[in-house]
């Protein structure tokens, strides 16, 4: 304390002498050094406090004393390498305290320079040795910095050294996949499987691997765009790899949770990417009948089965599946609402508009439900048209049902006929919008442009879909005909004509995207 008083009075030499004499009273006592260093820290003399601790090590002949104190001091003075070296010293004496050291290091590794300094120190300490805690630290630092390739290298060593038989690689792969680093995740899954992993973990790893491959293939899918899906001819070779991997899992682990999940993934790809409805029905039936399927998966598969049957034109079967979901005791609220919505859609396709509105009204009540918006939109459309032009609505719904089955060549003429036959019907602009969307999805971009332009020209005074028509038109220019200048001008026109449109925010984003600005 006297030293502190001297120091604060500006008598630095006296202060230093006082602290030296305090240490001299008990040079072999660690407590003495701790006390003096604490006083120095109180006076912001951090470098000198560190020196006192080092002196304490020499004085007591114990080189491992004051490690945590020194580490904290060095981190405070931005000497991250020094701090890491002290934490490593602590770890070498207390190998079980890896989590503790990680938590202390994490206080500084938020800074990239600190993370790099710590990595360097650990690498040097490791040399060619196979020190498991150090490797764990190194891998953890790499993951913190999202350096997945670096982490993968380290986990390989950890796995070999710990005799983990791929378990460490598998855990890493799962974390990398969760961070959307699918490439490195896929390779890690593969190596884990080949390690070989314990038999109980292999199906998990194989399912993870197939999923990562599927995601990689989706990333490589350059055909998909907001206006058009990937044509089946391109999708089959593109997603075929993932399908084969899921099929192999089914062969090797029949009647298990893994086979059920794999059937579901195949069903999804068949239905949404390949347009193979018959194949999807078979795959989804396996999920529903599979003993190993979890209830939520079974309900999802039943819902999907209903949707596939709508696409096949078999609304009776579809309704059966949706009713099964509605009646299921273990169904989740969102899945329940979707099933009710789909039943409402089936009524609509069949021209039973009152029944449809009744079903949709039930979902629209809960505004937090995922399907509330869809239910409100369809409900309002039915209300507007069912009372005034039921015949036009019936033809329109028939056309929509054809479109849902992918029968665009039949749906488009029917919609155009509706426009011709009922020019005063409120749904005429909806019909033109539907025509434009179907043409765009079929790759008939010039025709789609003409449809949207017609809507914008002929229904400028009456349609409430003008903003959406302008947005869709801009999308066709952007993604279909690849005319960025026209696309930008059309988005700008939307903003000028409909500044309060719900699509204004997206249009602004697209303009900035087209201008090459960071969003």
């Amino acid at each position, binding site marked *: 304390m006297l030293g*502190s008083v001297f*120091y*604060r*009075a*500006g008598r630095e030499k006296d202060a230093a002498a006082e602290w030296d004499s305090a240490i001299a009273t008990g040079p072999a006592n660690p407590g003495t050094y701790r006390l003096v260093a604490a006083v120095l820290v*109180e*006076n*912001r*003399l*951090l470098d000198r406090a560190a020196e006192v601790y080092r002196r304490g090590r020499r004085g007591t002949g114990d080189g491992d004393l004051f490690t945590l104190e020194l580490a904290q001091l060095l*981190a*405070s*003075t*931005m000497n991250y390498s020094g701090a890491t070296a002290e934490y490593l010293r602590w770890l070498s004496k207390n190998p079980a305290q890896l989590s503790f050291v990680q938590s202390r290091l994490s*206080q*500084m590794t938020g*800074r990239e320079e600190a993370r790099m300094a710590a990595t360097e120190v650990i690498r040097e300490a490791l040399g060619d040795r196979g020190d498991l805690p150090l490797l764990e630290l190194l891998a953890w630092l790499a993951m913190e910095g999202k350096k997945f390739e670096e982490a993968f290298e380290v986990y390989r060593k950890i796995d070999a050294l710990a005799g983990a038989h791929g378990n460490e690689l598998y855990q890493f792969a799962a974390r990398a996949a969760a961070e959307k680093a699918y490439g490195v995740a896929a390779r890690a899954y593969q190596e884990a499987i080949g390690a070989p992993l314990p038999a109980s973990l292999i199906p998990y790893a194989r399912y993870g691997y197939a999923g990562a491959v599927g995601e990689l293939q989706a990333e490589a899918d350059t055909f998909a765009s907001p206006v058009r899906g990937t044509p089946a001819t391109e999708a089959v070779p593109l997603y075929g790899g993932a399908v084969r991997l899921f099929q192999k899992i089914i062969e090797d682990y029949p009647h298990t949770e893994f086979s059920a999940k794999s059937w579901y993934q195949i069903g999804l790809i068949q239905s949404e990417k390949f347009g193979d409805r018959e194949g999807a029905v078979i795959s989804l039936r396996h999920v529903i009948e599979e003993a190993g399927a979890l209830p939520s998966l079974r309900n999802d598969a039943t819902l999907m089965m209903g949707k596939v049957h709508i696409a096949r034109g078999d609304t009776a079967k579809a309704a059966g599946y949706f009713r099964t979901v509605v009646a299921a005791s273990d169904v989740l609220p969102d899945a329940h609402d979707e099933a009710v919505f789909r039943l409402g859609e089936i009524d609509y396709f069949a021209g039973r508009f009152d029944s449809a509105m009744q079903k949709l009204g039930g979902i629209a009540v809960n505004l937090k439900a995922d399907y509330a918006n869809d239910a409100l939109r369809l409900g309002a459309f039915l209300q507007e048209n069912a009372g005034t032009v039921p015949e036009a609505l019936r033809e329109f719904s028939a056309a929509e049902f054809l479109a849902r089955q992918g029968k665009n060549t039949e749906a488009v003429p029917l919609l155009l006929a509706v426009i011709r036959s009922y020019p005063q019907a409120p749904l005429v602009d909806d019909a033109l919008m539907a025509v434009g969307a179907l043409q765009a999805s079929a790759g008939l971009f010039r025709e789609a442009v003409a449809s949207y332009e017609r809507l914008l020209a002929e229904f400028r005074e009456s349609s409430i879909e003008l903003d959406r028509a302008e947005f869709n038109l801009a999308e066709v220019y952007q993604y279909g005909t690849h005319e960025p200048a026209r696309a930008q001008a059309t988005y*700008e026109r939307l*903003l*000028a004509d409909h*500044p309060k449109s719900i699509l*204004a925010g997206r249009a*602004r984003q697209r*303009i*900035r995207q087209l201008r090459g600005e960071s969003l």
Partner: protein
Amino acid sequence: MKRSRSLAITLLLLLQGSQALSQEKVLIPMDLSQTDHLKAYGIAYMALSRGLEIDWLLNYRGGSFMLDAHDFITTECLVRGVAFIRESAAGAASIYAEVQREDNNMDVVRLEKAPRVAVYVPPGFQPWDDAVTLALDYAEIKYDKLWDDEVLDGKLADYDWLHLHHEDFTGQYGKFYASFAGAAWYQAQVAQLEQEARKRGFRKVAELKKAVARTIARYIGAGGFMFAMCSATDTFDIALAAENTDICDAIYDGDPPDPDFQQKLDFSKTLAFTGFTVEKNPLRYEYSDIDEPPSDMLGIQNPETDYFTLFEFSAKFDPVPTMLTQNHVNVIKGFMGQTTGFRKNLIKTSVTILAEKQGTEGVKYLHGNYGRGTFTYYGGHDPEDYQHAVGNPPTDLSLHKNSPGYRLILNNILFPAARKKQQKT
């Protein structure tokens, strides 16, 4: 001869006027019809950056902007979601006539050049630490970051407008010691500042910060514009007043404060405050008695009743305070900060008070001249986050597009762009 000369001048003025009015204009209204007040300032700044001149119509529809109609302006307004009105030449002339009528408290200020903007922030700072950078980023106004090295190396001369981050110029590291002495971020900040001070040859951080404050004061004196918020306001003045004394306790600089520091404060060196008492307790989260209400009284503030009121100035006689107080409302919800407001009786008489919390001693917003430049102080941390605390998430300004509190910040950015015109007498 005289008569013909004055006729020529009149003709020239008429010609200029007719040129200005001969084309279509764009009016960016700043009243309640504006969809995004904050981005509107960005449009004005962009137009200035591209060489256009803008008329700031003080007190007309909340302080609207009028500029020549160019497609790139209207397109940009659309893209950024800023409401605008195309005005014919005749329509614009009628607006100008209304604004310039003698019996209206309105006027036109011509903005000519985009100010070069700098923000004083530490390296590694996050934009959400500071309301001004949030506002600049949101409004898409470009700015450079400066720190102690740049200030001391004379880089301020390259800028027209400087904003001080909520920095502590007293060298007490924000007085966070009592609450955060053990926190890693606090220790890292202290270490970094000590390292910087040593590198520049200062024994203490307080000395470094005082030197920075003096350099900034010289920049203002030479014609610069300085805007400060939160603790940068009072600590800046305290640092200037404490030029010849040590107000820092040992826990901050390793030696005791000068026992007579209060008597040694030199208030002639400060910008806005005088006669204040510096806080002696190193553990109290307060620098002086300037802050009103004091930080330890903030707990009893009620956000529901905390509002401040903008003063109204004569647009034709006091254009500067009028510019700084342009808004679509004149009662604005309050917000706290390490320095929330300023005690009225400690403000120099030469300073103009722009906003106060009515019925209290608290001033929220003030402006003054210093040498050939000016300064503006705005109390509080974040106009849309009542009680911003360390570690709080950033304010998303897209949810506060019409924030009156943030508008006051952006008024300051455009103010240096104004062409100086002769005062009416």
